[in-house]
């Protein structure tokens, strides 16, 4: 009986933790979607499709999903020089947007969980703060 209670409490605790995580992620994504509409949509477009040869796609982007640290760095400090996204080459400049660390985390959570992207661990403010130029 005692062990049952321990297992039960652990189980409830886990569910609670995950549900909370989900809620935190959803709230971060909601804030991120506003940042996206404000700073990103004019180039990367509404569904993250980008513009071929000019602005790389975010939707189903291998670069974004496989280069987490570089992607956060790009949003935080700007991105320049050649890169390959989904087999296509891009060589353009994205100037730094002047976003705060929390805004970088929110917009990263939004783009990594939209338009067919999913499964990434939630980006936290601490993670963004720890990424330096």
């Amino acid at each position, binding site marked *: 009986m005692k062990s049952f209670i321990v297992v039960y409490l652990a189980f409830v605790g886990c569910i609670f933790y995950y549900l909370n995580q989900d809620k935190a992620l959803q709230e971060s994504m909601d804030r991120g979607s506003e940042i996206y509409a*404000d700073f990103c949509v004019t180039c990367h477009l509404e569904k993250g499709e980008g513009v071929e040869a000019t602005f790389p796609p975010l939707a189903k982007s291998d670069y974004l999903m496989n280069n987490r640290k570089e992607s956060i760095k790009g949003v935080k400090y700007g991105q320049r020089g050649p890169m390959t996204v989904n087999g296509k080459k891009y060589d353009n400049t994205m100037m730094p947007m002047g976003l705060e660390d929390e805004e970088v985390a929110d917009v990263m959570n939004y783009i990594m969980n939209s338009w067919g992207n999913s499964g990434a661990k939630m980006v936290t403010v601490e993670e963004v703060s720890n990424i330096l130029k």
Partner: protein
Amino acid sequence: MKNSILTLCFFVVMTNFSCAQNGDNEINTPEESNFTAELMVDGLEIPWGMVFLPDGGLLITEKSGELILFKDGQKTTIDNAPSIYLRGQGGLLDIELHPDYANNGWIYFSHSSEEGEDKGGNTAIMRAKLEGNALTNNELLYKATPNTTKGQHFGSRLEFDNDGYLYFSIGDRGNRDVNPQDITRDGGKIYRIMDDGTVPSDNPFVGQEGAKTAAYTYGNRNPQGMTKHPETGDIWIHEHGPKGGDEINIVKKGNNYGWPVITYGINYSGTPITDITAKEGMEQPLHYWLPSIGPSGMTFVTSDKYPDWKGNLLVGSLAFQYLERLEMEGNKVTYREKLMADIGRVRNVIQGPDGFIYVAVEGKGIYKLVPNAG
């Protein structure tokens, strides 16, 4: 069966014919170019504004905040440039000389600024003098309020008219339902001030309670092109539409250009902003672009260097990465042509005092357009 195939072929051919007609919203690409684009200044990121000094030096504003003097093939960073609010589309933006620069040395700047108590920033206009490699006598002439952390639509093009008034644009600052149609709020407007920043007493909203008296027109979205018509002396602007509906307008005292009540554009998401494109009391554009070209920078060609282009309007395209040439009959666009196809995001275009056209391209630099011999 045979007949129906013939009918189908006929239909396809006729469709092609109807597509080949040159409406004013179709663009033409010339088969051969009659000029060469020579890269004169390289290594620039977002060269937002540029102006030639009487001694042949070229002052260039980088959106990142750097002010550069290009002279005798050398780039020099000028100190004491205005401090900017680095956020979204904000930065060090346009630059213009006083019409009597030779005697008074005033240089005018627009930039995003954090001046004021509230968080965020808004568009500011300032002037300064160039002494050695630094700006001096910096004077803030206008600062839009309130500050906001929104990243879009600072406007910021500058132009003097023949009477010495300074015009500048401030975009809607991402608050389209509040700013553009309210004359008591900054943003979504063209402004007119004296060269020292004072408001002319005959500005249209002077005397109206709470009005932003420096405002000269309203209902604008985000004008990033402004130039003086060589014959009429009128100030012409173009402004970014949302998705579709970039416009060319002529600035007239007190006019309402309708944003966001009327527009030829739609939201980026594809949903409508409004179901009307015209309304009494609101101006129709002289020309509009569908789809949006993302216009930035604008000049009339007046020099004798390009005889075929005399009187034409040149406009940069950010979205489609070319320079657009528009032939005009009076106030009507009669022909559009794509120059410098796929050159990169064209941020600005001016005609220099030497009569040549200079084109600023993001990530590249400044090109001089040299007509081919013969």
